[in-house]
């Protein structure tokens, strides 16, 4: 089986600071991968390099058998890589339904296969919002939402792009126990529909219950990659989290 | 035109001298735009305002324009602090600095210029001082004192500002405020207060820069506009928020402008800074001496 996402020897520096060094990562279609690491270990930088928000100086990223290098962020989204942002970034002047309209118009429609009629798009927006229980607020502005609703909007907007790979960057930070559960159920359902998911998370309970595989970054290097329960017992991982 | 070594050296020397003055003009922008990320496009307006206030004071009290400017700096500081407060409450807090904040400063620039036109008319005004007039000659290099004096005081100003920024607590807080507001809050320092102080200082430098300007050349209200492209070009070129970078970039722009006006004619000089700005933005956005 060929990998859906193949990161090879990826390196990124900011001035003299090495944010990522020689990262290799391979994700199979349909996999659920957890990505963990202490603050500043380079998780978000890795996401940004995969999604085209930042340019990596070294290494390459292949997606679905073809290289992503050199393509812009929106081209990557259209190819099937969707992401959420660590701090939700809704389109503040657009209603929730309109927020979802953007990936439909600019990503799904560009791939063809989606009817262009306004009523179809409206219906699709509502269906998506219903999936996360936000259909009641379809015509409100993001400013009216609570923390957890905002995170759901962020997720559902990424889902609206109908990605092959969804990268959820700390979608659960600051949420309560039951809210984390809600998001996890959402992500699992998405995965069952065939979407590959990379979950970046600090809440270990969530990562452990979600991931089939766990990848650990520390100071810009990958120090572990494998079965979650085995990975967390590796001495190097324990040291990074508990020791020193 | 026959290439002349004399003219070249003369142009370079006067470029360096005028460059030091440009650094003083830009210092305020380096503080507000470079460090605080407040896009104060009205800064040249405050400089012209400074020129006119210095003009009135030195005309009425008969004191040296630079002394007059130093007397005015506290008032400019207060003005700057007040403007930042309005800006903060109306735009930064609401997250609207990108469009309405810019329009706000543009409006202030415009109001300043039109008010000066209404009050003083569009005639050129100039000041009197002992050093305006005489010129020192070193071989074929002419150094007019009306440029040398502002140049030297400009260098003093830049040095003093750099000392404040690097050696005092307030200065370090100013340098830190753009990087990490949270860290300042943890140290029980109010970042808004720090920004208000920094913006006050930035406008206070405009009083001095205004005095230098009216010493160097006669001033009319629309002169400020010529400086908009220039100061931002220098600020960006100097790497945003670095005073030494500003000084080097200012001298570079000064030299190139001076060469342009020597060899192509003075009416082309304003285009130089814009060319610099566009080139910098397009080729090396971090500035020549960028971080």
């Amino acid at each position, binding site marked *: 089986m060929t990998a859906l996402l193949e990161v090879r020897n990826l390196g990124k520096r900011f001035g003299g600071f090495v944010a990522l060094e020689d990262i290799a990562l391979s994700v199979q279609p349909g996999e659920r991968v957890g990505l*963990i690491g202490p603050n500043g270990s380079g998780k978000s930088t890795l996401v940004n390099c995969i*999604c*085209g*928000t930042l340019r990596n100086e070294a290494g390459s990223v292949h997606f679905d058998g073809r290289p992503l290098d050199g393509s*812009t*962020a*929106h081209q990557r*989204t259209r190819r099937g890589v969707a*992401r959420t*942002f660590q701090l939700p*970034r*809704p*389109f*503040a*002047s*657009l209603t929730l339904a*309109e927020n979802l*309209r*953007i*990936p439909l118009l*600019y*990503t799904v429609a*560009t791939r063809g296969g989606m009817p262009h009629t306004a009523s179809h798009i409206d219906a699709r927006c509502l269906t998506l919002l219903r999936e996360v229980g936000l259909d009641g607020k379809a015509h409100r*502005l993001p*400013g009216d939402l609570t*923390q957890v609703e905002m995170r759901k909007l962020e997720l559902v*907007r990424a889902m*609206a792009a109908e990605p092959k790979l969804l990268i959820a960057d700390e979608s659960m*930070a*600051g949420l309560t126990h039951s809210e984390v559960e809600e998001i996890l159920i959402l992500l699992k359902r998405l995965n069952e529909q065939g979407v590959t998911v990379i979950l970046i998370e*600090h*809440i270990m309970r969530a990562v452990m219950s979600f991931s089939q595989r766990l990848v650990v970054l520390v100071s810009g290097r990958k120090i572990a990659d494998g079965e979650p329960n085995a990975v967390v017992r590796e001495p190097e991982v324990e040291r990074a989290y508990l020791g020193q | 035109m026959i290439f002349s070594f004399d003219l070249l050296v003369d142009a370079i020397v006067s470029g360096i001298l005028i460059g030091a003055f440009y650094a003083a003009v830009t210092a305020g922008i380096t503080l507000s735009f470079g460090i605080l990320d407040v896009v104060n*496009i009205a800064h040249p307006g405050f400089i012209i305002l400074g020129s006119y206030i210095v003009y009135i004071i030195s005309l009425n009290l008969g004191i040296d324009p630079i002394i007059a400017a130093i007397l005015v700096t506290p008032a400019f500081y207060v003005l700057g602090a007040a403007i930042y407060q309005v800006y903060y409450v*109306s735009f930064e807090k*609401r*997250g609207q600095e*990108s*469009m*309405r*904040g*810019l*329009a*706000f400063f*543009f*409006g202030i620039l*415009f*109001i300043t210029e*039109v008010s000066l*036109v209404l009050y003083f008319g569009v005639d050129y005004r100039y000041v009197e001082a002992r050093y305006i007039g005489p010129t020192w000659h070193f071989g074929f290099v002419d150094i007019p004192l009306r440029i040398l004096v502002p140049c030297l005081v400009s260098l003093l100003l830049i040095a003093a500002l750099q000392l404040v920024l690097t050696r005092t607590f307030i200065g370090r807080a100013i340098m830190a405020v753009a990087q990490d507001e949270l860290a300042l809050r943890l140290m029980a320092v109010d970042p808004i207060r720090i920004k208000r102080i920094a913006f006050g200082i930035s406008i206070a430098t405009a009083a001095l820069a205004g005095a230098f300007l009216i010493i160097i050349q006669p001033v009319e209200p629309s002169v400020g*506009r010529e400086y908009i*492209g220039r100061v*931002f070009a220098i600020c960006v070129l100097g790497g945003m928020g670095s005073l030494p970078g500003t000084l080097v970039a200012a001298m570079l722009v000064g030299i190139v402008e001076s060469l342009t006006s020597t060899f192509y004619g003075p*009416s*082309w000089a*304003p*285009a130089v800074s*814009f060319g610099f*700005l566009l080139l910098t*933005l*397009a080729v090396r956005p971090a500035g020549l001496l960028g971080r």
Partner: protein
Amino acid sequence: MRTDIFLIVSLLIGACVYGLAATLGNDYYFFAGYVVLQYVVLATAWNILGGYCGYVNFGSAAFFALGAYSTVALYRFHPMPIPVDVVLGGVASGIVGLGTGYLTLRMRGAFFAIATLALAVVLETLVVNWDYVGGSRGAYIVRPETIAPFGSYIKYLFAIMLLLAIGSITVARLIERSRLGYGFATIRDDELAAEASGVPTLRLKLVATTISGALMGMAGAPFPYYIGYLQPSSAFGLDYAVNSIAMPLIGGTTSWVGPLIGAVLLGSLQQIATVTISSAVNLLIVGFLLVGFVIVAPNGIIGLVQKYVQHRPLRQVGRRHIKADAPEATP
């Protein structure tokens, strides 16, 4: 309302405006009306980039002057019918808009704003040094006294500007309701999120700078015929830059109605004030209105109306993303 019906209705309204001005029986109304309409075009053009995309253009005067000077250059070569001038002026300004956008739009919005400010200074420098179009002395354009079937020439100019105003409003309205308009709104709100949703932000920004620049140039193209004697200082007048920002911001930036209201109100006010008080005082008023509105009524007149009459939720404009103060949970 469908676009074709909208266009027909606006043309009818335009015909009424023309008819009204004609019945007043004094060419002064055409002269004054021309300026107001010119501001309608400028404000609408500014808003396509400024209001929809959130990119502030301080160089409206430069684009306007570019249109005016392309007419002068053409006139020196061979006088052309004004519609040809309008098209060519639009092309010239559109190209400069595209170029400015290309050089600066990769940077933060503030750099674009600064670059446009400087652009005005540089273009003025170029024109002042360009003798073919009159340099600093200015250039005379001989305006025919009359033209069939309008009668006096100013009526013809007025009609052209009226059509341009209707055209630019239609373009703005069309953009607002299209996929393009949604793309513009995401650029205004959050460019990173826009890219992540598949919006080609750079390309859309270039579309906006080009359309906006072209419309401004078109507004400037007939100007030499209006004024008869074009000087750099009148073509590059700061009042164009200020008005084309103030009018949309005072009217409201989220919809095509805002710039129209702003331009008609402020434009008429200035036409009245120029007669009664000095033009400098009247520009000062515009300056204070601009500053006052951005502080007190950030969503302009439309925002005020929505707030007090309809109680509809306000569409917030501006780059705002909600700051989530999420405590970083450590594992």
